[in-house]
């Protein structure tokens, strides 16, 4: 095991000192994957790519003999399939589907972004097989083979269009990245005393980026308000570990005390968000009541928590 990945793998899943990153409508992410999850995920990636490779080579073998072949059965066979190719094609498809399931399942367990690799199976399959159609269609004896060329164009479109749509749909920061990452950093940088874990921001370097830390050009009051709420939740989790009250932890993480500007989010909005967190189970009853009181107290003092 490399020195670089060992601390990440050894991180405890439910370490109370670690804030569970949360996102609206999603389950809290874990702080670190188990080694078995990562290994099975990597096996899934290897098996999927292996199945695609087998299918790609098998298809070329069949196209080498004209594109049609048969094997077995009681009939007279004009063109026999190359030995083993029929079996390989039959086996490669379900094995590839199984591998996609492994990638999605174990990828979701080891961190945000990893499961989405499974979605690449679709463009990888159609683009690679489309390449075969185009190559053989253009290199056919006696001129272009239009049937194969049409198939090639269709396959490339089926694989390429979803891929382009997915790339264009990614946030700009994601497109510049080298892939999803997870990172930990001291929460002291945002007013707490624990460790915060990245939500799998696809940027190569940062940890959890609060909305208020984004470029000012795209920061909205909603972002700032959400940042404030996240700081509160962070304070609660730290409070659990330290045995302090939520109010104390919240005050410790108050951006106003850290010299930052007060977020302009409304009290009602914050209370609604707290209620949603409670409904999702992210906050216990006592935590919810204490946080709610902290928001009300802060509003009574003329600011926001």
């Amino acid at each position, binding site marked *: 095991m490399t020195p*670089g*990945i060992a601390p990440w793998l050894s*991180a405890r899943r439910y370490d109370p000192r670690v804030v569970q990153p949360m996102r609206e409508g999603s389950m809290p992410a874990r702080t670190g994957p188990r080694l078995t999850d*990562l290994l099975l995920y990597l096996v899934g990636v290897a098996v999927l*790519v292996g199945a*695609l490779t087998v299918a790609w*080579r098998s298809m070329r073998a069949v196209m080498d003999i004209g594109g049609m072949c048969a094997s077995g059965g009681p009939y007279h066979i004009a063109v026999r399939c190359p030995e083993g190719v029929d079996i390989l094609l039959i086996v490669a498809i379900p094995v590839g589907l199984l591998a996609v399931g492994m990638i999605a399942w174990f990828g979701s367990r080891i961190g945000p972004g990893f499961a989405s690799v499974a979605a690449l199976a679709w463009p990888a399959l159609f683009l690679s097989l489309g390449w075969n159609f185009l190559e053989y269609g253009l290199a056919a004896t006696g001129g272009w083979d239009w049937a194969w060329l049409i198939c090639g164009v269709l396959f490339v479109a089926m694989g390429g269009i979803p891929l382009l749509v997915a790339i264009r749909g990614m946030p700009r920061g994601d497109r510049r990245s080298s892939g999803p990452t997870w990172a930990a950093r001291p929460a002291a940088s945002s007013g707490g005393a624990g460790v915060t874990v990245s939500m799998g921001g696809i940027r190569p370097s940062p940890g959890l980026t609060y909305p208020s830390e984004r470029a000012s050009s795209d920061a909205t009051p909603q972002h700032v308000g959400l940042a404030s709420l996240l700081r509160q939740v962070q304070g609660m989790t730290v409070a659990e570990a330290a045995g302090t009250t939520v109010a104390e932890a919240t005050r410790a993480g108050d951006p106003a005390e850290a010299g930052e500007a007060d977020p302009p989010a409304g009290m009602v909005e914050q209370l609604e968000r707290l209620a949603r967190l409670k409904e999702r189970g992210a906050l216990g009853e006592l935590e919810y009541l204490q946080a709610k009181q902290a928001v009300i107290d802060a509003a009574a003092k003329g600011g926001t928590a």
Partner: protein
Amino acid sequence: VTEERSGGRWAWLLVVAAAAAGVAGGWWLYGIVTGT
């Protein structure tokens, strides 16, 4: 902290390595089964 960040990158390198191993393994399996 720095090690944990680099751990994420190492894991992605492992993903790429697994994909490369998949290509090699698939190529090898096809050759073994078909005798080519």
